Structure formats: C-alpha cells, structure tokens
C-alpha cells in the first residue's frame, strides 16, 4: 500500500472509504484500534460493575419480562427469575441498547448508509428479497441465543472476556464456535 496516493478528498483508489479527516468521522478504523477500545471496557466492567463484558444474558432478562406478560408463572422459573432484576442484569440490557446508539452515531459521523439487507446475503445464499432473508435472520438469531445460553456466554462473554480470564470453558466454546461457523460458511457460496 506504500504507493497509495490520496486524492483531494483524502480518498485513495484502493480504499475509497478512508478519509484523512477527523478520526471520529472516518468510515473505518483498524481492527486493532477498535479491539483495544473494546478491551479497555473491561476496566469499568470489572471495577464498577464487578462483572466481565458480555451480551447474551441481556436477552434472558428481556425475554423473562416478555414471557411474564402472557405467562403469570414465568418468574417461578428460577432461571428467568435470576436474570429478571438487579443492577448487573439491567446494566447489560443498557449495554446492548448503547451498542445500537454508538453504532448509529458512528455511522452518522462518517455518513455511512447501509441498505435494508447487506449485499453479502445475495452473494452468499442467492436470497435477494427481504422476507426470506428476514426469516433466515430470525432462525439465525434463535439458534444464536439458544446456543449461547447452553454454553453460558457468547462471543463477548466467552470469547473476549472468558479467554482473557484464561477460562478453559471459554476456549472450548470458542473452538466449537469457529469450527461450526467455518463449516456452515463453507456450505455457502464464496463471498
């Protein structure tokens, strides 16, 4: 990339998304800068919340309350009850809502607009219309959370946080995740 020349707008022919302007307005940061920022979030997580960074148990907190709208006995379920209340549970729900807000602000600052469905799906699966892609996303989301709750964590809780704590369970879970993910992706068309 050493021969790359930027034009008057700070764009290069190789990376037309890269702007030389404000750091917050750039479309892409290196994965190393982004990874360090995410890793630094362990400091407030451990010191202020007394937990590790995670995302998947927030789905249990929310679904426990949704279940109790139509099932008066939902909170008799000890698993739902243990996720339904308290600072740590609502902290994680706020965290995932914050993720959506942070991503929205970041995309706005770089004027990045995304289609309703990413073009990768047509390339990988041939699915070009919204309804079948939405059904695929729903099924994927279901399997994602059912699996994460069996394992007791997701890419954040087991991956980023668990391996950083040298937990054997997290190393096994992430090995299984990548093995199954690679197998499933290899059945799709090359993207």
């Amino acid at each position: 990339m050493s021969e790359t020349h930027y034009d008057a707008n700070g764009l290069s022919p190789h990376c037309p998304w890269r702007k030389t302007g404000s750091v917050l307005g750039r479309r892409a940061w290196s994965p190393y800068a982004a990874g360090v920022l995410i890793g630094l979030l362990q400091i407030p997580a451990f010191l202020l919340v007394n937990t590790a960074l995670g995302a998947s148990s927030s789905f249990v907190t929310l679904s426990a309350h949704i279940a109790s709208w139509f099932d008066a006995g939902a909170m008799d379920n000890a698993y739902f009850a243990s996720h339904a209340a308290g600072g740590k549970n609502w902290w994680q729900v706020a965290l995932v809502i914050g993720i959506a807000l942070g991503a929205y602000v970041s995309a706005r600052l770089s004027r990045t607009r995304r289609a309703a469905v990413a073009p990768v799906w047509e390339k990988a699966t041939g699915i070009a219309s919204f309804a079948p892609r939405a059904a695929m996303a729903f099924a994927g989301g279901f399997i994602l959370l059912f699996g994460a709750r069996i394992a007791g964590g997701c890419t954040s809780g087991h991956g980023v946080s668990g391996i950083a704590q040298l937990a054997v369970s997290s190393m096994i879970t992430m090995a299984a995740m990548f093995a199954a993910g690679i197998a499933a992706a290899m059945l799709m068309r090359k993207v």
Partner: protein
Amino acid sequence: MEVYSMVVLGLLMGAAFGFALEKGRVFEPGVIVGQMQFRTFTMLKMFLTAIATGLVILAVLNGFWGVKLHPKATEIGADVVGGALLGLGIVLAGACPGTLFAQIGAGYRDAWFALAGGLAGAMAFGYAQPALKPWITGGPGKLTLDAMLGLPFWVVALMLAALLIAGLAALEHMRPWEDDLGPDADGLRD
C-alpha cells in the same frame, strides 16, 4: 450501585462498544461470513486484539490489585454443543448477540428479525433450562489455564498476550487490514 446508575453506566459503555464495532467494521455480515470462509481476517484481528488487551488489563487488575475474576465453569458437553450452535447462528444471522445491535444502529433492517429470533431463542432456552439443567451443570468447575499450569494468573495472561500480539503482527504482515474491507467497507472485496 443503584439500578439507575448501572443503566447510565451501561448506556455509556455500550455506546463506546457500539462505536468501536462500527468503526472496526466487525458488525458487517460480510466481514463475519468472509472470516468464516477465510476470505477476510478483520473479525479475527479485532477479536484477538480485544482478548490481548483484556489479558494485559486483567493481569494488572488481578495481579497487582487483587481484583476478583469471573471465569465461567467448564461443562464440556454444553460448551461444545452451545458453542457449535452459536457458530451456526453467527453465520445465519451474520452477527453475534452483541453485534446484531450494532447492525440495528447502522441501519440493517433484517437485524431486527435476528433480535426477535434471539429473544425467542433465549425464552425457549429459559423454559427448557430446568429439563436441560442436569446436562449443562456439574462439570469440573471453574477450570483456568493458570491454575492447570500452577502459575500465577498474571504470568500466564501476559505470556498469552505476547503470543497473540506476535500472531497478530504476523497476520498483519501477510494481510494488511486495509486490503480486507473492500470499496464499501463491508468486507466484500470486489
């Protein structure tokens, strides 16, 4: 801490998390599927960088200040089956439980259906949990690499961090990160 202040803290930390996920492009379904097909390496680079950063931070917090760690208990069957389902779900949804919120924030509308599916999946697991409990609990407990090696946490954490950083440097040398994102920064290289 009060629930209210925990919610404010969660929103602030989440906003930083979501900002980093969007800037790093790791929330893009093309980056996730591309990683699983070994076409792009953005996801692995960010994932391993976040782990290496966490290892150094926790080596300091635990090794010098005695801050308590929270490793998850080992349940080999549940970890393998749950991890495999997680991997399948990641490829079908094009997201992890955290990054699907970044997709919603960035404007992908199918991510709302992944969220609905995720809530349904968590609810289904909650109802199934009493029946699954004998199988997903009762493993060998909170096994950690440092305890198995009989070394202090901070020593093994810093050694693994050094190993990961060396691996990342080699990976970056073979494949510069800017070559992996493509013209629309969504992981599609052509």
